[in-house]
């Protein structure tokens, strides 16, 4: 194609000249638009490969043998019969990989396969690689493990007893080895504040554990080449940490280990640390010289878990008679399951993240995470803070009931404000919480519904805040938290190399929108390659809602650097100041001369001729002055916080205890919506997930009377009961944009914050509907029905009506 032809073709794919005047006036060409996702076409055609869709010639299939006992010593493992089976290529046990690991370097307490002790039903004991899955399953059956059974500890209170069987050895003599972490922090004199409060609300709450249940089961493929270079493809959301830990545990040079994350079919925190299968495929491939794949069964996904911690919470809330919060005192017992996982952080988060969006005059929390012989808990969407948020927002509703103050008004009165510090010294920048409250109040028609609907129907409100990334990486280092490289090619194509883990949330699309915005190219010119440790700069992964904020900022910096270089080159060519040049809509434009423009690829050529090939790396690191100086002050610190308010409307059948949620209004302050369609998707998906936890889902275990102690009660999607389309309420997403000073174009997180208020909003709506308090999850028909029998709910419901609206009482 001749240059003129190319120019004409590219001009046709650019914005038409008549719309350029309007384009120049706009702050953004693409940001804020409802654009397609860059990986959308592959997903709707089924052509995008997920890990299990990848196969290699001569690939072997692996399986992991799992413990049938909740707590036992391994006396011996005999793998000889399995090894002798035709088609079996390798068998490994815990002794082949005895180096312990954990995502948190201070609590390394698990090995890929158990070495001498199993700690839950489902704990990995041995692994095989065979020609096909059927042979691998037969090989597992042929492995003989001799166990000495130990007494299991299933309840967190039992784990705390001084004479409790020890699940892990105590780090120091005299300590209880069943305690992962204990944190007690106090800000101000809580006891004095409570003693002098006008009202004190006390409540005990129980949050049942829940699991992520991504529809894609975990899968990994290991392939060690003839020179010992290892590649692991894995359905992970943290390729960088997986790369580091595989190298450390298997004693490899990390520079020879490559981790590739193909498309991931849902994660929600459930794939955010190394798992046994990643180590096993790596070692099995090293042993056999062939690629080895392991795909979890659905049952194994439930055992691997790392989901929401069950928490038993006791709160005291002191307030003035006007409803201002004077003191908050929380005691939390956290059931951690068999291993630490992120538990150290969970323990801090259970207290640290409660201190906004309301101002606390004083605050204390005392949180203890203990081990039990159940699948390990970890981070699930809204890590560590969904449980206390449920309890606290119900406490606020009780305060509102006691004082006769509308619960939305009560929340407004306690608003902490923007550009401020919380009682535990977290720096808050932008804060759109009041706008969130206004939005749900108006959209839900709150004023005409609350305390005014007939018995059986009600509305409830709740609020929350969440982090946009953690201020510090998981392993201490001074390097950037995120980096993005952009390469601009002569044709006009823009290649974005991003470390971010695309798990469905749209992180590949976010960097593509940013690059297209800054470089002025049509979105189709942008290619994104992400989460392949051989190709992309380090990013720490998709956890703690950090991708849009941190990777987005890194991408903005790289793109702006290139933008400037290109504009300067064009400006020199045209002999005008660089600030007059804009790259937008497929063009390089002279904003001072409406007629002067060239296709953007020509501008790239001018710049490349002037200063060489166009490439830039941008990075982001967090500001360090955003937290206090006390021990633990950094955990919970984030460069920015998102804010959310929900109103839920419910219908309760008093005869059956069945709660139907009609609709949830979700208002979320995401700073700025880079693509409102994707932000709404995160808000709706979050509210759905909270709804499921509130009403349906239960990660529970048999107690010895109902079946084998410690056995998962229902390790299947149907029995665990995640919501179907028929269960899920109408969800209405209301985006609030507070434009954060630190976020990319002002953006903050949207993936986790909007889950928090669903659960307390539903609990508070149930109170409005039938006058009972649901302080324990889930609000299942038997629990609701029982509460209705006990509470004389109807009388309490009648008392809660404002004067003039009580049934049978005439208005004055």
């Amino acid at each position, binding site marked *: 194609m001749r240059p003129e032809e190319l120019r004409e073709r590219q001009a046709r794919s650019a914005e038409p000249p008549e719309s350029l005047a309007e384009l120049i006036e706009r702050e953004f060409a693409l940001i804020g638009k409802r654009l397609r*996702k860059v990986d959308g076409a592959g997903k*709707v*055609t089924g052509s995008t490969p997920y890990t299990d869709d990848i196969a290699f010639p001569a690939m072997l299939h692996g399986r992991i043998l799992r413990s049938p006992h909740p707590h036992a010593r391994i006396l011996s493992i005999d793998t000889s019969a399995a090894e002798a089976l035709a088609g079996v290529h390798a068998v490994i046990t815990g002794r082949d990989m005895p180096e312990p690991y954990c995502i948190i370097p201070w609590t390394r307490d698990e090995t890929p396969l158990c070495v001498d002790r199993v700690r839950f039903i489902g704990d990995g004991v041995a692994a095989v690689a065979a020609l096909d899955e059927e042979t691998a399953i037969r090989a597992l059956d042929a492995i003989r493990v001799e166990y000495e059974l130990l007494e299991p500890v299933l309840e967190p209170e039992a784990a705390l007893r001084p004479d409790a069987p020890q699940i892990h050895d105590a780090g120091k003599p005299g300590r209880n080895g069943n305690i992962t972490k204990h944190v007690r922090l106090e800000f101000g004199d809580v006891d004095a504040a409570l003693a002098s409060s006008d009202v004190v609300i006390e409540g005990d709450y129980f949050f049942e554990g829940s699991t992520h249940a991504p*529809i894609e089961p975990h899968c990994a493929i290991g392939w060690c080449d003839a020179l010992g270079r290892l590649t692991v493809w894995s359905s992970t959301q943290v390729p960088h940490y997986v790369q580091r830990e595989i190298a450390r545990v298997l004693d490899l040079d990390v520079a020879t280990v490559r981790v590739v994350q193909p498309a991931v079919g849902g994660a929600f925190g459930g794939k955010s640390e190394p798992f046994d299968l990643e180590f096993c495929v790596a070692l099995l491939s090293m042993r056999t010289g062939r690629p080895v794949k392991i795909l979890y069964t*659905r049952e194994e996904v439930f055992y691997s878990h790392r989901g929401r911690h069950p928490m038993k919470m006791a709160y005291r809330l002191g307030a003035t008679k006007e409803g201002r919060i004077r003191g908050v005192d929380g005691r939390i017992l956290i059931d951690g399951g068999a291993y630490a996982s992120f538990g150290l952080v969970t323990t801090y988060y259970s207290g640290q993240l409660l201190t906004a969006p309301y101002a606390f005059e004083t605050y204390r929390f005392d949180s203890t995470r203990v081990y039990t012989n159940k699948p390990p808990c970890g981070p699930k969407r809204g890590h560590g803070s969904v449980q206390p948020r449920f309890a606290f927002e119900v406490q606020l509703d009780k305060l509102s009931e006691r004082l006769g103050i509308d619960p939305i008004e009560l929340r407004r009165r306690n608003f902490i404000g923007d550009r401020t510090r919380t009682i535990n010294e977290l720096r808050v920048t932008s804060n759109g919480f009041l706008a969130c409250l206004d939005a749900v109040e108006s959209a839900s028609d709150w004023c005409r519904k609350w305390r005014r609907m007939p018995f059986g129907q009600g509305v409830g409100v709740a609020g929350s805040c969440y982090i946009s990334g953690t201020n510090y990486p998981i392993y201490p280092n001074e390097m950037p938290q995120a980096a993005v490289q952009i390469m601009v090619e002569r044709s006009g194509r823009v290649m974005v190399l991003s470390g971010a883990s695309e798990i*469905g949330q749209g992180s590949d699309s976010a960097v593509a929108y940013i690059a297209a915005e800054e470089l002025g190219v049509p979105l189709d010119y942008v290619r994104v390659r992400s989460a392949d440790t051989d190709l992309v700069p380090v990013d720490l992964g998709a956890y703690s809602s950090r991708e849009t904020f941190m990777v987005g900022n890194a991408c903005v910096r790289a793109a702006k650097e290139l933008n400037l270089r290109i504009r300067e080159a064009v400006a020199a060519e045209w002999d005008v100041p660089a600030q007059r040049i804009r790259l937008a809509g497929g063009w390089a434009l002279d904003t001072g001369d409406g007629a002067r423009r060239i296709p953007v690829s020509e501008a790239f050529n001018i710049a490349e001729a002037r200063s060489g090939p166009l490439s830039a790396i941008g990075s982001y690191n967090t500001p360090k002055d955003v937290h206090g100086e006390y021990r633990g002050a950094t955990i919970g610190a984030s460069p920015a916080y998102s804010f959310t308010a929900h109103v839920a409307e419910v219908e309760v059948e008093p005869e059956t205890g069945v709660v139907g949620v009609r609709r949830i209004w979700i208002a979320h302050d995401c700073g700025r919506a880079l693509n*409102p*369609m994707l932000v709404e998707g995160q808000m709706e998906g979050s509210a759905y997930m909270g709804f499921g936890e509130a009403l349906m889902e239960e990660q529970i275990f048999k107690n010895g009377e109902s079946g084998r102690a410690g056995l998962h009660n229902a390790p299947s999607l149907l029995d665990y009961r995640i919501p179907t389309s028929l269960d899920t309420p109408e969800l209405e997403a209301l*985006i609030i944009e507070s434009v954060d000073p630190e976020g990319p174009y002002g953006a903050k997180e949207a993936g986790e914050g909007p889950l928090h208020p669903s659960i307390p909003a539903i609990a508070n709506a149930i109170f409005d509907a039938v006058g009972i308090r649901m302080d324990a999850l889930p609000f299942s028909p038997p629990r609701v029905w029982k509460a209705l029998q006990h509470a004389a709910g109807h009388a309490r419901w009648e008392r809660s009506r404002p004067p003039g609206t009580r049934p049978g009482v005439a208005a004055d």
Partner: protein
Amino acid sequence: MRNMLTFIVNGDAIEAGVPEHFTLLEALRYEFGLTGSKQGCDKGDCGACTVLLDGEPVLSCITPAAEAAGREVRTVEGLAEPGRLSALQDAFDTCGAAQCGFCTPGILMSATALLERTPVPTREEIRAALSGNLCRCTGYTKIYEAIEKAAAVMSGRDAQALGPAGGRRA
């Protein structure tokens, strides 16, 4: 033991020796290289493996491969027209109905069967038709909107009349 069977998959007649214990999903994924249909649970709970068998949605992970022999199988790979997305796929893409995308192939097949049976379904009919397909990402809202948009496009109504995809801005 392998059985020689003839399958009609997305219009192609395929003769293959398929292990007799294979499910239709295993035949599609392991024998025919059609990995668009997904395995989420392998026991008929999640619907990610949904394909059309003689036009009816079935769970291919619990359908013996032999049962599909000689019958017409349609999978997600058979939906797009050459070089472009079908109206339904396009609506999923423009409405943000696929987040992680793992349930999407199965949902597209259930929705295809629905739209062939009921060209302009109500929201309730859509909910009922998708009740065997679990989505863990979206909360279903954007999926409903995409199916409604596709129905409008396919039945010739002006999709713009439905307004912008998605919820409202405050």
